[in-house]
């Protein structure tokens, strides 16, 4: 066990050092932040898709409340930070539009089918869940495909970028954001059954650590925590290596994206934290004396359904301007109206996805099982 744990530490430190040496101190620090996310999400079992399912099926509101607490903690610090350092730090603001709402709804539905959201897919893959690994491959392909069609989708109609700060000012914007989170918390408490309302100590600690890491991400990178952009960029890199001329596409020809495409992914903020997150989740799984039983085997057709759902998951996340992390967590905590609309649309989709799940994901019999 000692050798295994030493190996895990060596991998985490080695990758951090690699990023530091190859791309500079910011890359090394962001790799550490990503590893921290992975350690907390997997180690303290803090998730997004699971609690959204639990509040519906089991009337268990503890995980969802922990999410709202983490978002509120980030907002309290991020709002004044962004106001005082607008030239150095950027919020996660995006426009509300038809495609954005549709994308969030579909994302919510698909995340219940692949049993993981943006961060959850990385955590599941890193912690050795085969469904998560298949979903990760699909997510990469889907978010890249979404980037190719984003212009057409956003052309269906969208509002200008609206934020709490822009509409109400920094102070009132923060107060209204916290009031909104309190309202959702109250609805969660009303729905939750007795004994399933107060988050356990583990989730309080996880919420505080996730908030601290998200703020570290903002301060170090100059932008909030995100997932989807990095995965789409990985897909673009693979397509480019396969001979695709992405300079002909509107999204990848745009100045910032073209720069990312021609530069190493070690210079891309979300790629660094994504890699770190995966390694952090892997480290937790290998650190444990018992890594746990393999995920339940599914039929081959169900694995095919997971891959298809993950492609749509990635595609819809691109249209929705982010997943549970970039849109919901970072959007709301930095004042974006689209974060709130994302929450409503994705929750509606998630509720539908919960009903579809038993029909699409079927456990395999022992004979012919793949897991």
């Amino acid at each position, binding site marked *: 066990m000692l050798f295994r744990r030493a190996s895990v530490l060596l*991998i985490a430190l080695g990758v951090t050092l690699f990023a530091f040496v*190859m791309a500079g101190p910011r890359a090394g620090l962001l790799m550490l932040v990503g590893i921290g996310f992975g350690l907390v999400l997997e180690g303290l079992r803090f998730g997004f898709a699971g609690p959204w399912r639990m509040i519906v099926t089991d009337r268990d509101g503890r995980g969802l409340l922990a999410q709202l607490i983490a978002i509120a903690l980030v907002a309290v610090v991020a709002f004044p930070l962004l106001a005082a350092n607008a030239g*150095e*730090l950027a919020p996660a603001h995006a426009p509300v539009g038809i495609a954005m709402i549709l994308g969030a709804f579909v994302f919510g539905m698909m995340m219940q089918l692949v049993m993981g959201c943006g961060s959850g897919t990385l955590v599941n893959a890193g912690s050795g869940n085969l469904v998560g690994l298949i979903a990760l491959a699909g997510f990469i392909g889907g978010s890249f495909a979404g980037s190719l069609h984003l212009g057409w989708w956003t052309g269906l109609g969208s509002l200008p970028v609206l934020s709490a700060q822009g509409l109400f000012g920094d102070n009132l914007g923060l107060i209204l954001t916290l009031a909104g989170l309190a309202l959702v918390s109250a609805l969660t408490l009303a729905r939750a059954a007795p004994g399933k309302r107060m988050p356990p100590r583990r989730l309080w600690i996880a919420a505080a650590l996730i908030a601290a890491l998200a703020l570290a991400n903002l301060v170090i*990178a100059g*932008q909030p925590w995100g997932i989807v952009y990095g995965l789409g960029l990985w897909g673009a890199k693979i397509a480019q290596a396969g001979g695709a001329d992405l300079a002909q596409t509107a999204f990848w020809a745009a100045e910032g*994206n073209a720069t990312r495409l021609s530069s190493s992914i*070690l210079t891309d903020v*979300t790629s660094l934290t994504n890699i770190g997150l995966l390694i952090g989740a892997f480290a937790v799984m290998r650190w444990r004396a018992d890594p746990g039983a393999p995920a339940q085997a599914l039929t081959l057709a169900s694995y095919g359904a997971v891959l298809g759902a993950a492609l749509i998951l990635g595609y819809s996340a691109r249209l929705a301007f982010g997943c549970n*992390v970039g849109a919901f967590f970072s959007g709301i905590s930095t004042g974006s109206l689209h974060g709130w609309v994302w929450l409503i649309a994705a929750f509606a989709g998630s509720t539908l996805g919960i009903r579809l799940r038993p029909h699409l994901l079927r456990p395999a019999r022992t004979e012919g099982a793949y897991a």
Partner: protein
Amino acid sequence: MSTRLSRPIVGLLALVLTAAILALDLAQSGPPDLFSAPSAIALGSGAAPEGAHCTGS
């Protein structure tokens, strides 16, 4: 036939997938230019944020 992959094997495959993408990228884009690397921390750097985010189009 019964094929059961343990969690450590699947986790390792996820790391291998990521390492393969990183290697492909380094072969394609080359290593980053350390002399143009940003300061360690954006806050207080005086530089505008230039990273890409999921909310961007």
